[in-house]
């Protein structure tokens, strides 16, 4: 009997909206998967251009062991990236010296002490700080910060590790503040209430309960800050002095990996060793930042499991 209903095909019929629904589902899936395609694409296309160099001109010991980056030398072309790696590391290190205490301090103040309108306004200001484009930061390093450093330390040029580090620190701090504050906010209120019920002051509660509980989130904030520092290009290019150097003090100029690519890519011939070497630097940067982001993500996931 029921079969007559089905045979008439009236009740269970794949209608237009069913087909539209399935089509849309496929389209949305394509959108979702595109992110994976792009990240693979970045690796493939950057790798592809660096490929010939990696297998012909590339020497592992020279790349990581030599400070001689002489891509355009006629008779002694060398691609030693050590100074560039150290340059990036020193600028990032200086940046973290600035950004870690300040961003964590700001996160604690905004997340735990500030209330209501003050808190909202501070958050908005931090967000605006994060919005300043990197080329503007570079310009500020080149002009304002340069002047300040020359005057303050009485040295001829103010474009150095200190300058780029401070600029980079200011750039990384807002993101770190936001993530760190999220981590603090994620600590359940019942922990706070328990500590307060025992008569702890707010600061004791923060130090003994909130900070340990938010540890993973804070570590991940720092990691993402480091990732940001590693990958920053224009600001470092403009503020670091851009000279190949193993720095002995914060007042020495250095050159960063990213800045080298930005400065030299325009002058190289497609397919040359120099060109391939720059893409190899790109692969190196991609892998490093990928690992940093992956670690930060895993660290955060660690909290959620608990």
């Amino acid at each position, binding site marked *: *009997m*029921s*079969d*007559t*209903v*089905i045979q008439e095909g*009236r*009740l*269970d*019929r*794949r*209608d237009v*909206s*069913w087909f539209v*629904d399935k089509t849309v589902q496929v389209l949305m899936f394509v959108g979702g998967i595109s992110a994976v395609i792009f990240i693979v694409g970045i690796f493939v296309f950057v790798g592809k251009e660096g490929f010939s160099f990696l297998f012909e001109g590339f020497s592992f010991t020279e790349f990581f062991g030599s400070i001689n980056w002489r891509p355009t030398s006629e008779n002694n072309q060398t691609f030693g990236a050590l100074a560039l790696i150290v340059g990036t590391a020193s600028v990032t290190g200086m940046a973290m010296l600035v950004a870690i205490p300040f961003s964590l301090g700001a996160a604690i103040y905004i997340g735990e002490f500030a209330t209501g309108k003050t808190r909202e306004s501070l958050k908005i200001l931090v967000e605006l700080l994060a919005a300043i484009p990197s080329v503007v930061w570079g310009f500020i390093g080149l002009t304002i910060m340069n002047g300040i450093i020359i005057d303050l330390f009485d040295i001829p040029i103010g474009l150095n590790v200190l300058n780029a580090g401070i600029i980079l620190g200011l750039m990384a701090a807002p993101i770190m503040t936001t993530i760190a504050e999220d981590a603090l906010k994620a600590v359940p209120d019942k922990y706070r209430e328990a500590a307060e019920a025992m008569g702890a002051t707010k600061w004791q509660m923060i130090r003994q309960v909130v900070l340990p509980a938010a540890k993973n989130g804070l570590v991940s904030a720092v990691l993402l800050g480091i990732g940001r520092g590693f990958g920053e290009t224009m600001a470092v290019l403009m503020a670091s002095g851009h000279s190949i150097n193993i720095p002995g003090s914060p007042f020495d100029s250095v050159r960063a990996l990213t800045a080298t690519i930005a400065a030299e890519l325009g002058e190289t011939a497609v397919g040359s060793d120099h060109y391939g070497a720059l893409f190899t630097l790109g692969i190196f940067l991609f892998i490093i930042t990928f690992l940093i982001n992956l670690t930060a993500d895993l660290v955060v996931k660690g909290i959620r499991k608990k």
Partner: protein
Amino acid sequence: MIDTSQNIPVLNIRDLNISYGSNTILRDVTLNVRPNEIFGIIGPANSGKTSFLKAINRMDEFTDGMRTEGLIEFYGYDTSKWRNLYSLRKQMGVVFPLPVGLPLSVYENVAFAPRISGVRNKSELDDIVENCLTRAALWDEVKDRLNSLGSLLSGGQQQRLTIARALSQKPKLLMLDEFSIAVDPVTTMRIEDVLRDLKKELSIILVTNLVQQAERLADRTALFLNGELVEIGQTNELFDGRTKDQRTTDYLEGRFG
């Protein structure tokens, strides 16, 4: 649409099991729901009542990890073989424990389902809206503010709005999941009257945590306990103490749950 002249059950359920991952929450349920009856389901929280309803209108499709085994026939047709589940759900109205007014006007809340089914004619929609709101005993209260937001109505009104919405596609089966949780006693009584009226045209599954509500409304009542169907019986017999299982008597007398 559906041939209801034959005396086949609205729902014929055999050996239904529902599980989430390795956690089985409903075991070996066998029952049927007849035309024009109110079928009460009682039982303490977490007895699998809500999942039972979800299995019937195949919401397992939208529920992560939910798995069903066994046979569910709707008017004799195996729902697991249904190709267009959306059309299946259109045959069954559902009312949730907490009223969910869609963020649309009162009018559009009721017209939502007919619209997505392709009804465009304004006067036809007007008729459906008035008819459903009237049957849900809400028309008189909202007829002057059909264009105001559905979620601005009071809780009791919103629950009647969801009933009107559930009726908008002329379902053959109406499933109510503890509808009176967020509704005041007066509105509860009004809705119960509505259900008694609706019984003339469709079948109703009434999941309730109020034993007395089942006693007042249901023709037959089933007790679910810890994922098990303990007993089905004529409501008046169960409440007269003619139970087959001691646990039913205990539950009806309020000894647990």
